[in-house]
């Protein structure tokens, strides 16, 4: 990598042969195994990798904030020529914030809920000696927040984090990170918890700020498209090692390492972009990438989907008609406001097809799913499943409806009972609905594990022994246990790494073809919609603003809102394979 660097200046940050390990009962477990990278002043470098690749650990090692028992076991971290690994606590406190700023990952958990936003900005300013004196510190805090895009900072200084939206909190954190004009900013997945359009605005803003101030940025992300969008140089990490490094475009266009090749092939943002490129382009790329990729290929999966769509029958499995949901929100002084979460929504899903319901958080998409599953009452309108209006069902009928319609939720960690073995978890719906003898149930569990491509030996294991992807497979197996006709997938792949996500999406497509399932696929991520859905409905503020086939929505979006969503997909602006 240093070979490509022709600049005469010395690097701002130079990491040499960095090893980080975590002390456990079984000895030292290495998390980072020999990482080399360097960042020039004012440069943006992105580390890309899946969870567990060591990318965040590398970032935290720089500022000595490794969690728990983690420590640097070998190597040097040179910052302006000074080895950070040799500093004592006080010296390190002088580096953090002042010279190296941090913008953490999750805006929801990175501000202390009990202190006002102003307090938390001001204490950073005071600690780094940027300003002193009550008034000066306050003024500086307001300036910093305004720069970070919080226009009404002066009036909102006294408010608490929970009174801010996720995007606003991330702006606060960016403001804190940049408050003392550091030379390097570590941005650890700074927007992965945010909606795509918010993500785009915030990252654009961050780029302007750091560009103007000449701040170097170390950008950590799992999203290859995002990394390529935002950084000049990429470092791809896998299992604690750097597997590939170089200029972003070069890596995307000509990935050398097999892992990078799989990553490029699986990245939904990039894949969908390439499918969108019509005719000849598609072919030239499909022969290029999958030929080398060892893993799943979303382009192929996308192709399969379009065949499947034509084969689907027109008979609707789900019909939603003028559906409305209102919530009463308690206001001050005994008044109450009515919030219309879902506003006159109508759609139908033909049997054996997938409809994606897309929208940002707060758009009402999950409320629709909850009403469909009868977990939420309907204010007005109707939902018809297999020709039966679900409003009029009694307890017994509802019970049998539930066996025909099963959900898979977003969080594979929260949706499995940690005290129940995998076998018992998958068998639970069978027991509840009194299906078969215990021997038959055991056989069915084995069959289901096979269907979701999990080894049989997992039957006796517990959720904490499984990876996120495996857990989501278990959740899918459980949903399929009763041989349902409809599966409601609420952000079912949003919490997963790209490669795992691609595997699960492929699995879902295969299962659909095999079992003629109908999917309602709820997501905020337009990129995955392309490869899984036959039709798309875009929701905003409780209404469906656009509904059409997937090709139409992606190829020719009619609404400005849909276009905004599409443009905000990271990597969308990269003209790959052109």
């Amino acid at each position, binding site marked *: 990598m240093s070979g490509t660097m022709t600049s005469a200046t010395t690097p701002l940050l130079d990491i040499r042969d960095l090893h980080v390990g975590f002390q456990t009962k079984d000895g030292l477990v290495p998390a980072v195994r020999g990482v080399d990278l360097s960042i020039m002043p004012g440069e943006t470098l992105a580390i890309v990798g899946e969870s567990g690749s060591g990318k965040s650990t590398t970032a*935290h090692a720089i*500022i000595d*904030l490794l*969690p*728990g028992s983690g420590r640097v076991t070998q190597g040097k971290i040179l910052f302006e020529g000074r080895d950070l690994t040799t500093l004592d*606590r*006080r010296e390190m*406190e*002088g580096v*953090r*914030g*002042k010279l190296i*700023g*941090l913008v*953490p*990952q*999750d805006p929801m*958990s*990175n*501000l*202390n*809920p*009990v*202190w*006002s936003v102003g307090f938390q900005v001001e*204490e*950073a300013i005071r*600690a*780094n000696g940027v300003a002193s004196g009550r008034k000066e510190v306050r003024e500086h805090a307001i300036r910093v927040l305004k720069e970070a895009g919080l226009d009404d900072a002066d009036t909102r200084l006294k408010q*608490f984090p*929970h009174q801010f939206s996720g995007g606003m909190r991330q702006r606060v*954190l960016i403001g*804190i*990170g940049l*408050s*003392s004009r550091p030379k390097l900013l570590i941005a650890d997945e700074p927007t992965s918890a945010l909606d795509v359009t918010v993500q785009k605005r915030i990252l654009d803003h961050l780029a302007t700020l750091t560009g103007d101030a000449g701040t170097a940025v170390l950008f950590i992300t799992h999203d290859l498209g995002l990394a390529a969008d935002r950084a000049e140089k990429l470092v791809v990490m896998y299992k604690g090692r750097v597997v590939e490094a170089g200029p972003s475009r070069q890596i995307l266009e000509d990935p050398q390492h097999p892992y990078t090749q799989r990553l490029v092939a699986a990245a939904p943002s990039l894949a969908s972009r390439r499918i969108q490129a019509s005719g000849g382009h598609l072919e030239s790329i499909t022969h290029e990438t999958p030929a080398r990729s060892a893993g799943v290929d979303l382009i192929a999966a996308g192709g399969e989907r379009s065949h499947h769509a034509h084969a689907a029958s027109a008979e609707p499995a789900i019909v939603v008609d003028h559906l409305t949901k209102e919530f009463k929100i*308690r206001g*001050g002084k*005994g008044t109450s406001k009515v919030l219309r979460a879902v506003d006159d929504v109508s759609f139908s899903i033909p049997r054996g097809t997938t409809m994606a319901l897309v929208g940002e958080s707060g758009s009402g998409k999950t409320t629709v799913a909850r009403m469909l599953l009868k977990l939420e009452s309907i204010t007005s309108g109707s939902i018809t499943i297999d020709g039966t209006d679900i409003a009029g069902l009694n307890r017994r009928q509802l019970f049998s409806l539930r066996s025909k319609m099963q959900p898979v939720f977003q969080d594979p960690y929260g949706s499995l009972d940690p005290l129940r073995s995998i076998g018992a978890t998958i068998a639970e719906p069978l027991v509840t609905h009194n299906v078969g003898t215990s021997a038959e149930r055991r056989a069915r569990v084995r069959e289901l594990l096979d269907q979701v491509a999990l080894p049989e030996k997992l039957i006796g294991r517990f959720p904490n022994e499984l990876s996120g992807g495996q857990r989501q497979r278990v959740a899918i197996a459980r949903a399929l246990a009763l041989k349902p006709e409809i599966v409601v997938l609420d952000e079912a792949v949003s919490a997963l790494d790209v490669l795992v996500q691609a595997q699960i999406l492929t699995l879902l497509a295969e299962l659909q073809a095999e079992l003629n399932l109908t999917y309602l696929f709820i997501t905020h991520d337009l990129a995955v919609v392309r490869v899984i859905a036959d039709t798309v409905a875009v929701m905003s503020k409780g209404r469906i603003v656009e509904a059409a086939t997937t090709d139409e929505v992606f190829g020719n979006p009619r609404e400005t809102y849909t276009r905004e969503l599409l443009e905000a997909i990271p990597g969308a602006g990269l003209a790959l394979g052109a």
Partner: protein
Amino acid sequence: MARYILWRVLQAIPVLIGTTFLIYFMVFAMPGNPLLALFGDRTPNPALLERLEEQYHLNEPFLVQYWYYLSGIFQGDFGTSFTGEPTTEILARTFPVTIRLAVLALIIQGVLGILVGLVSGLRKGKFFDSSALAVSLLLISLPIFVIAFLAQYVFGIELGWARTTVGSGAPWADLILPAFVLASVSFAQIVRLTRASVIETKSLDFVRTAYGKGLGRNRVVPVHILRNSLIPVTTYLGTDFGVLLVGATVTEGIFNVPGVGRTLFQAILRGEGPTVVSFVTVMVLIYLVVNLVIDLLYAVLDPRIRYVK
């Protein structure tokens, strides 16, 4: 906020009436004639007995007795004890002593428990943590009267640091040793609670961010770790105040503190309905007020909590 407080005060009314009713009923249902017990072995003059029964309404059915009592309360009359002393006077004499004792104990266990819990949590698994755990377990497993006698013996007799019994008027200095004994009951609980809370808080994201933005340890520990860890501990301290009032009965007995515990105990033995009920009512009242204060404090400690009603 004002509406919420009003609502809570209104809620307290049925609780208070319910409590007095239950206690009154229990005292009423106790076997034996309390007046006969008062006379000991001697047979009282039937006319005198009848006059006394009338005076205390003992010849009336339960509900009528209860009604007399309740209507008296609303006129500020809490009844009189069999010794002729108005219950209000007994309350005024004993409650300040017990509350002083309980507050002292609360401060001791709060300050010491939180401090030890904080250090234990920050040094999880180290020597200090293990020793604190051992001491807490020891204190939990010893009954309070054992601790009381031990403290009396060691600090009162052997070392001579404190008086073994509390003098009249119960001055603060005399109450320190009993307060320490009383505090030992919940000390371990508070240490464990603070420790668990600190361990949880110190690994939260915002603590790492606080370090990341350049704050030193001397600022992060009190402002971001301890401050947030106090939220569950505060709730516990509130409910524990009630336990301290009750626990004071044993401690007061051993240290001869002229407080509520001893007086109430004697009143129960004598079957003095109005006295018992009045004491319990005031205790319930204190308990309700303390819990309301804790709930309000909770909103101060955690700005995410807002009371609307």
